[in-house]
């Protein structure tokens, strides 16, 4: 008979820049929620052919030392762990237009073309689709405008926290209700070709998909650089 291991895992936390800012402002931290992440884990290392059996399938992952926490550790919180029904096999994903999982979603304005375009947004592998609402992260709102059922909101929560950490001045997050199926995107004139990566996020599942937009210079009177 051996002793049962009743130990609790103890880990040291570090404040993020946002946490330090709140302390500097004299506001309490009032920590009241936690989430878990597996950033840094690659599930392709899961080895169902391990000669020692199923207990060792995850050996390569479990034995991997983690990098230590840093004040900029918000970057480590990229992939959240989620809670679904046990028999879930298909993970939720975001469909943008005809672009599904594994496909690079993008749009390039043609030369001399300035008209906006509509993009459909859908949540797949979830019965009834999105139930809470959508978020759209625009890293530079001076280059494009968003219309439809989308309203400017704030950075945080579902949105990848690194945006808040980096204080990107022109980043804006738009919110839309769950019934929203499309977004209209218009561009501004630019003297050079500009590229933006938009991020669409499902609020109910945290699933997200990037959308690349490329804007050739317009009006076309200067040399492209």
């Amino acid at each position, binding site marked *: 008979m051996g002793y049962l291991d009743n130990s609790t895992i103890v880990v040291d936390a570090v404040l993020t820049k946002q946490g330090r800012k709140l302390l500097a402002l004299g506001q309490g931290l009032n920590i009241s929620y936690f989430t878990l992440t597996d950033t*840094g884990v690659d599930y392709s290392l899961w080895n169902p052919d391990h000669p020692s059996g199923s207990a060792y399938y995850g050996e390569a992952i479990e034995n991997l030392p983690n990098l230590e926490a840093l004040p900029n550790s918000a970057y*480590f919180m990229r992939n959240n762990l989620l809670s679904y029904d046990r028999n879930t096999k298909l993970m939720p994903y975001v469909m943008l237009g005809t672009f599904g999982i594994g496909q690079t979603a993008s749009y390039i304005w043609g030369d001399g073309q300035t008209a906006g375009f509509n993009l459909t947004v859908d949540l797949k592998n979830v019965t009834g689709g999105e139930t809470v609402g959508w978020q759209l992260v625009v890293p530079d709102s001076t280059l494009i405008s968003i219309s439809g059922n989308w309203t400017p909101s704030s950075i945080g929560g579902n949105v990848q926290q690194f945006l808040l950490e980096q204080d990107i001045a022109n980043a804006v997050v738009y919110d839309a209700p769950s019934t929203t199926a499309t977004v209209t995107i218009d561009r501004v004139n630019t003297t050079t070709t500009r590229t933006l990566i938009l991020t669409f996020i499902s609020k109910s599942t945290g699933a997200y998909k990037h959308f690349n937009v490329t804007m050739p210079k317009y009006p076309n009177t200067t040399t492209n650089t």
Partner: protein
Amino acid sequence: MRIYNEVVTIFNDLTGQWDTISEDSFEYNGNDIMLAQGLPVGATPINDTDTVADTVKTTAGYFTNGDGTLTGTETYTGSLSDSNEKHYFNAVQTHPDSSSAVVQFSTTYGHILGMGSDTYGDSLSKADNLRGEVQSIYRQFTSLLLHENEQSGGFKISQQGSAGAIGSGDANGGRDDYFYALVGKRERFKDRINKKAWTIVLSGSNSSGGGTSNVLYLTDDSKYASSTATPAGPRHNIVSGALGVPTGSSPAVAYAHKTFGWFYPEMGIMLFSGNQLSASIPGNTAGTAMTASFKTDLTADKTLGFGPNLNQKGNSKNALRFINCLRHVGSGNALRLRSEEDQTQENYFCRIKAADYNFSANPTFSSGSDNKVRHVSMHGNPQTFISGVGLYNSAGHLLAVAKLSSPLKKNFASEATIKVKLTY
């Protein structure tokens, strides 16, 4: 709004202020509305009962590299400008020419009439023509350490002992006209000097120049006697003893027999009655007419004691006598000191139930055009690996992040409690 990531400051002994050496800051012009938001998907509440806050006192060796002791032979004076040497001397832990020499503490000497510094100035006969530097020191300390209604009367340390060097009925009302002080460096003592855990050993010569038996072991009596509230924080008596244990059979009232000084742990100051020290270690009588100087070999030094040179026509460097008496201890420990720091510690117990957090948004968790869980062996039995914990406030701001040393496996058959310790 300016946000500071880091500010490095140094205490300016001249101005008595903290000067900024460097700062890492930036101007934040973002819209405040950008900072309010909802919570991430699946965030789990932390109950009040799962949050434990406490303040932990951490003690460490006071001296460089966390060393808790300083021997006599390690004690040197640090380099200082002439103008500063009229007020105080620094002590370093190795030869001052060494690149590793760092100031450990300072010593100073104060006299209520300025005796031991130049008070005549250009006058040949007027002893109070100038306010001497050591008079400024005395008044600086009364202003700092005493109540308003005590300041004009000066320090009355020695009079509280029945065997004290000064009786309460003396001409000056029991006042200590002069003192020696050890002033700690803030960066070394952190929040305060740890009481009950220090010893100072002073060694010097008697009035005829002999010195082998004139040794004092001093400590505080906080273990047995309650502190006195002062505007400079709690004050304890410095009495004969070691490591917080006064000598004699009645340690609780050792101060009533003989009080050598007052100890202000939160100020990092040890203030010694000059009369009391010089009664125990007077030094050669001839030395009271000499200017003190630091020497590595103090064998024949006549200023090896606390009987001060009261000359008022120059700098007598009496504060050096304190360092000399530490140095004279030799290879034994002259000082044993600890720093003390309060650390606020919050513990959050993150309880992860069996049904929670068994799937992942990690792109490698699923694959294929229908985003299926990648491994068939995980169908119906998904496995995730926790590598970190994020802590949020109710607005959804990520305020702290903890990393596990290695990923922790999680599935429907396992539960886990992760205790996240946040110290600041």
